[in-house]
């Protein structure tokens, strides 16, 4: 009846996971109780859970990413502290638990922090920047988000029921085959990624279609803000790469569930094919994460330097070049696994070549700053920290791209330091820059500047103090994923890295303080004008937060940096443009399809992990029924009357008028 599920799945005998599980359960129950007692449930259901508004979905993606960032960061702190204690000692985490921690850390940080963060920001910003009212497929967008959340839920469920994979963030066979990993850990990993992978693919299709087909009149390709270009490139990569991941993990699932022989040691299986396919996805994945971050930095640097982006066209070319080349370098992840000199050489050269468009970008940002009137607000601090840190990470990457050097450094902590150097510097710093930059647009008030700067300083310092020592011990031969060690020379560096972990943790703490302080003091941080940073692209033409329909009238774009042009005209003439004629707006109706679908996906995922077959079938039937019910509805849009549109837009115009009046007074 319940498959493999029994009371033994709950880790009663292991105090650390049990304790963690209790904290998670207590938090979830506390949140639920507060929601129910305060009577927020109808509001949450109506305005958030069933929402198909791209802004709401973007915010929920970002929130999911930040919650999961806490989980991933706790894993990181556990790893650093384990290595601190485990010098000629067993430490406090037994090997089977330590292995789960580093596997969960990697998987969570990539799939449930990086991905939802960039997709969330893209979801929120892209339609606003393109000057349109919604994404191409609003309901599908909601389905995508809730499937991602399902994946995250399953990963966290493994903390309480059963175990997580012990196979690293990518489950390399034959270790991940049933012979060597008979437990449910790998199944948790595989099913949560299969489900969230569908969500990611849906988000990718949605954003690509939005950017290619849904843009304001006059918004030609070469007038799109840089962030839209990078999101386009990133989502093209999602469409091209995620199916490979889905297929590869499905083959591993077939090996595990039905006794197939794709990657096994017996019956002709070839585990190298797994390495090959997983990295054919894995390398583009790096650029899926990093390209939108490049876009965020482009927006931030240009805004806070008060200048248009330097070399816009070469930036576009560089972005699309990275998009293509990123599909031609994947072998560099397994230089040491038996390919010949010719193959290694070509992939090594391609890996170095991809540094060229990236270098073009760095120079573009530097020249954007050059001669600009730079304001060092928090997003700009993240951006400058990124440029310096990412350049170092990129250079160590070029080192690793040289196959002979890679034979020395492969799977050492040097490699670990390298990829944290690029991913933290670009994706995490970029996500925080974007979070600070667009927060006022989403909520109508700014984040507190002082706490934000302090958090950034701790984060950056924490990063260097953690990972420079890891570069050094990596060069000294320390491999990754060591549960304990006995080399005295590594010891001091590991202690310094632990101190860095503390600094980073303080940085995260300061960000939580920043959020709390900002919410408490939201009235004095209020953004009245809708344009708190003196922005250049169309999202700043809307009020903060934007109304459901974003734009009362679709803007007519007549050049690059459309909002800057409109604003300059208004400033020159000290007068707003003529009030447009308002018409009623049709918007998509909210739908619980995404949430219900994710509910059934969760049921299916969980029952597949525990081999509860009747529940699998019930879940599949439920998911199909959900889609049919959705397809059967007759009204999928509602109308916002012209008066409402006019009222909201007039308030926005009034705020802009007030800003102009201040300008007049100053002159």
């Amino acid at each position, binding site marked *: 009846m319940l498959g493999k599920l029994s009371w033994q799945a709950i880790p009663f005998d292991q105090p650390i996971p049990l304790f963690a599980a209790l904290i998670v359960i207590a938090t979830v129950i506390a949140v639920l109780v507060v929601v129910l007692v305060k009577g927020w449930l109808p509001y949450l259901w109506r305005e958030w859970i069933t929402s198909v508004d791209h802004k709401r979905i973007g915010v929920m993606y970002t929130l999911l990413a930040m919650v999961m960032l806490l989980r991933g960061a706790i894993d990181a702190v556990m790893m650093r502290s384990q290595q601190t204690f485990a010098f000629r000692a067993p430490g406090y985490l037994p090997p089977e638990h330590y292995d789960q921690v580093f596997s969960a850390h990697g998987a969570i940080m990539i799939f449930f922090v990086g991905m939802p963060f960039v997709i969330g920001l893209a979801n929120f910003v892209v339609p606003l920047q393109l000057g349109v009212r919604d994404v191409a497929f609003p309901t599908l967008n909601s389905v995508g988000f809730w499937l991602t959340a399902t994946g995250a839920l399953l990963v966290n469920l493994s903390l309480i029921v059963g175990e997580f994979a012990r196979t690293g963030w990518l489950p390399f066979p034959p270790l991940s085959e049933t012979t060597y990993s008979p437990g449910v850990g790998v199944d948790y990993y595989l099913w949560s990624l299969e489900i969230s992978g569908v969500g990611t693919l849906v988000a990718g299709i949605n954003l690509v279609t939005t950017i290619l087909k849904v843009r304001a009149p006059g918004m030609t390709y070469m007038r799109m803000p840089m962030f839209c270009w990078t999101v386009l490139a990133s989502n093209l990569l999602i469409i091209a790469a995620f199916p490979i991941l889905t297929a590869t993990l499905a083959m591993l699932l077939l090996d595990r569930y039905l006794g197939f022989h794709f990657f096994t040691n017996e019956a002709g299986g070839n585990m190298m094919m797994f390495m090959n396919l997983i990295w054919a996805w894995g390398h583009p994945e790096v650029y899926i994460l990093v390209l939108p971050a490049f876009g965020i930095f482009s927006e931030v640097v240009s805004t806070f330097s008060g200048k248009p982006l330097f070399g816009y066209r070469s930036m576009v070319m560089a972005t699309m070049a990275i998009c293509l080349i990123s*599909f031609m370098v994947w072998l560099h992840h397994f230089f040491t696994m038996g390919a010949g000199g010719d193959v290694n050489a070509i992939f090594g050269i391609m890996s170095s070549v991809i540094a060229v468009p990236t270098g073009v970008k760095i120079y573009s940002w530097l020249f954007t700053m050059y001669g600009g009137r730079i304001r060092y607000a928090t997003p700009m601090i993240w951006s400058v920290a990124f440029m310096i840190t990412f350049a170092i990470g990129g250079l160590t990457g070029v080192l690793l791209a040289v196959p002979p050097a890679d034979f020395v450094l492969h799977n050492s902590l040097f490699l670990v330091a390298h990829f944290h150097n690029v991913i933290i510097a670009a994706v995490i710093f970029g996500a925080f820059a974007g979070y600070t930059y667009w927060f006022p647009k989403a909520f109508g008030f700014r984040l507190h500047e002082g706490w934000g700067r302090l958090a950034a300083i701790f984060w950056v310092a924490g990063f260097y103090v953690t990972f420079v020592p890891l570069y050094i011990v990596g060069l000294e031969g320390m491999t990754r994923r060591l549960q304990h060690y006995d080399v005295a020379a590594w010891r001091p560096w590991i202690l310094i890295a632990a101190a860095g972990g503390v600094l980073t943790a303080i940085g995260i703490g300061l960000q939580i303080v920043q959020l709390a302080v900002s919410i408490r003091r939201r009235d004095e941080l209020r953004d009245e004008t809708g344009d708190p940073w003196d922005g250049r692209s169309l999202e700043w033409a809307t009020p903060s937060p934007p109304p459901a329909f974003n734009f009362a009238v679709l803007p007519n774009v007549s050049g690059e940096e459309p909002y800057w042009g409109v604003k300059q005209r208004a400033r020159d003439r000290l007068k707003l443009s003529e009030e447009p004629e308002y018409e009623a707006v049709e918007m998509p109706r909210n739908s619980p399809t995404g949430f219900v679908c994710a509910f059934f996906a969760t049921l299916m995922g969980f029952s597949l992990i525990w081999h509860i077959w009747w529940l699998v079938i019930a879940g599949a039937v439920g998911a199909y029924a959900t889609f049919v019910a959705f397809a059967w509805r007759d009204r999928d849009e509602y109308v916002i009357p012209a008066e409402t549109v006019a009222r909201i837009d007039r308030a926005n115009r009034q705020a802009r008028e007030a800003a102009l009046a201040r300008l007049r007074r100053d002159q």
Partner: protein
Amino acid sequence: MSDAQAHDPSIEEFDTAPGDEHLDGSGVAQGVIGYLVGLVLAALLTVVSFLLPAANLVWPPSIPVALIVLAIAQMGVHLVFFIHITTGPDNTNNVMALAFGVLIVFLVIGGSLWIMSNMNHNMAPMSGTMQMGP
């Protein structure tokens, strides 16, 4: 457009959905003829694919190349006659997306085969000598 969205029809012609039927009442016969042509061409290519290697007509080592060429030709027939992909400007985006997909398919299949054959060539044979247990 049957949709409520109003568009200037003079600019619609630059864009079309992939696979869209261009029927204007009288075009049913034309549409059916299009599919029929596609069916005949596809059937012809299929028959050639099945008979060519059996018929001992061509030099045996060229058979795989011939089969792949025939398959690609037939895929082209399907794209043109069934999915109505054209080279016209209204199809630019559809063709660009298709080209991107095809490029990725070639990179994945070609790259995998090259890498894996290279690895097989370089690795010691594993037959039977390395039995590992749990």
